[in-house]
């Protein structure tokens, strides 16, 4: 088998798969090949698509590889599938951002950070499988804790959680007041009740 064959096999596999294929899975399927060769074939295939102005790109999302259409052609594809151009609402985006960066996180913590009730948004995001319940936090009341899903990574074309856009660091800015760093988020009532009588 030649190198070109392996590349074409990888291409066929990616073409047929309806979800991102991880390198491990590719290697498991292509058991007669060495892992480095498979990896090289994926890289060459990706370059092929990139170099020749093709309408397909080999994207690295959610820890795997997937063939995706070129973003510039989105309008034409929408004509084909007659789909509405869907958009996440601002509250959904905010909630997902908070959860993505702070997971595992409870609803109360999300609400403290956003300053608003988030129950409805969480429900919608759970339904859309953008977030999932990771378990229960071991504090009184045993609140549910949430995290993002693989579908979330796929939807936002992210390779993994580490490739989320970096958060602007505010730690040193917040330190300008020189007050003691809070170890735990003070949940519930945000107003300081420590005022003197």
């Amino acid at each position, binding site marked *: 088998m030649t190198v070109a064959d392996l590349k074409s096999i990888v291409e066929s596999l990616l073409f047929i798969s*309806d979800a991102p294929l991880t390198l491990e899975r590719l290697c498991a399927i292509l058991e007669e090949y060495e892992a480095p060769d498979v990896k090289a074939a994926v890289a060459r295939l990706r370059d092929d698509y990139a170099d020749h102005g093709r309408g397909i790109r080999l994207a690295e999302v959610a820890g795997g590889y997937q*063939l995706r259409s070129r*973003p510039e052609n989105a309008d034409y594809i929408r004509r084909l599938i007659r789909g509405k151009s869907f958009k996440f609402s601002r509250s959904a985006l905010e909630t997902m*951002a908070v959860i993505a960066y702070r997971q595992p996180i409870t609803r109360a913590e999300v609400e403290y*950070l956003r300053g608003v009730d988030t129950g409805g948004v969480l429900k919608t995001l759970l339904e859309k499988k953008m977030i999932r319940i990771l378990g229960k936090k071991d504090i009184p009341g045993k609140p549910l804790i949430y995290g993002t899903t693989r579908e979330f990574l796929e939807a*936002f074309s992210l390779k993994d959680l580490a490739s989320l856009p970096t958060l602007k660091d505010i730690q040193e800015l917040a330190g300008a007041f020189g007050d003691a760093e809070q170890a735990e988020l003070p949940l519930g009532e945000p107003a300081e009740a420590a005022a003197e009588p």
Partner: protein
Amino acid sequence: MPVDAVQERLFPETDPSVYTVRTESFEGPLDLLLYLIRKNEVDIYNIPIAAITRQYLEYLELMKELNLDIAGEFLVMASTLVQIKSRMLLPVQEEEETEEAEEDPRAELVKRLLEYQRYREASERLSECELLGREVFARKFASAELGEFKPVEAPPEVELFELIEAFRALLVKVPEASFHEVGAEGMTVADRINEILDLLRGKDAVTFERLFTVPLSRDYVIVTFLAILELCKLRMVKLLQANSFGVIWIAPTLLEGDSYEEESGDRGRP
């Protein structure tokens, strides 16, 4: 006829700005505060609480006039602002220096605002990602070939009715006893639970039918059925079904977390 034209004819002398209603909607009190801070071009570390509070309250008033529902959070923030303002009016007492009371009353609010702003920026950048189904598209189809071996990802959980239907179908298969049998099988629900758990060990899921392989007797079917119900009640197993009238799968719940990683694997191939 355009509304503007009507308005102009009805109220020719009115200042058009009177009628401009800001339609921007705020995600919450923090959002509104950030907006006011930016609009007034004030330093977030040195918020003029009096001015900002006044504008904040004016905004709430406007929302009331527009008959908008004012969420409780907005009111909580209003009282927080007023409280901060009153605390700032209090003279700082010498004796309190040792305590934390010396802290700027605005500190906590500023911290929350900065934190919120940070996530809001993150959410804006998140929305700039290429969104699947908006900028980029990928193959998405329910392929029978790829999905046959396992329950599809996160299938709906089985309704009790479906379970009973499956149970009824099994009972029909049980041959009618033609004579009276003395003695019991000696099979208890607890025994059967252990058997089922053994069967499930190390597997992602087994089919409902798999649990009824031995020559069927009415007792056996009923005990097994009760065992499944008991396991469900204890949340030790989960019943899954990919489509209506499809195969019912029994999956141990403890494995759920890790088994999702390789959902598309072919380990379940019969």
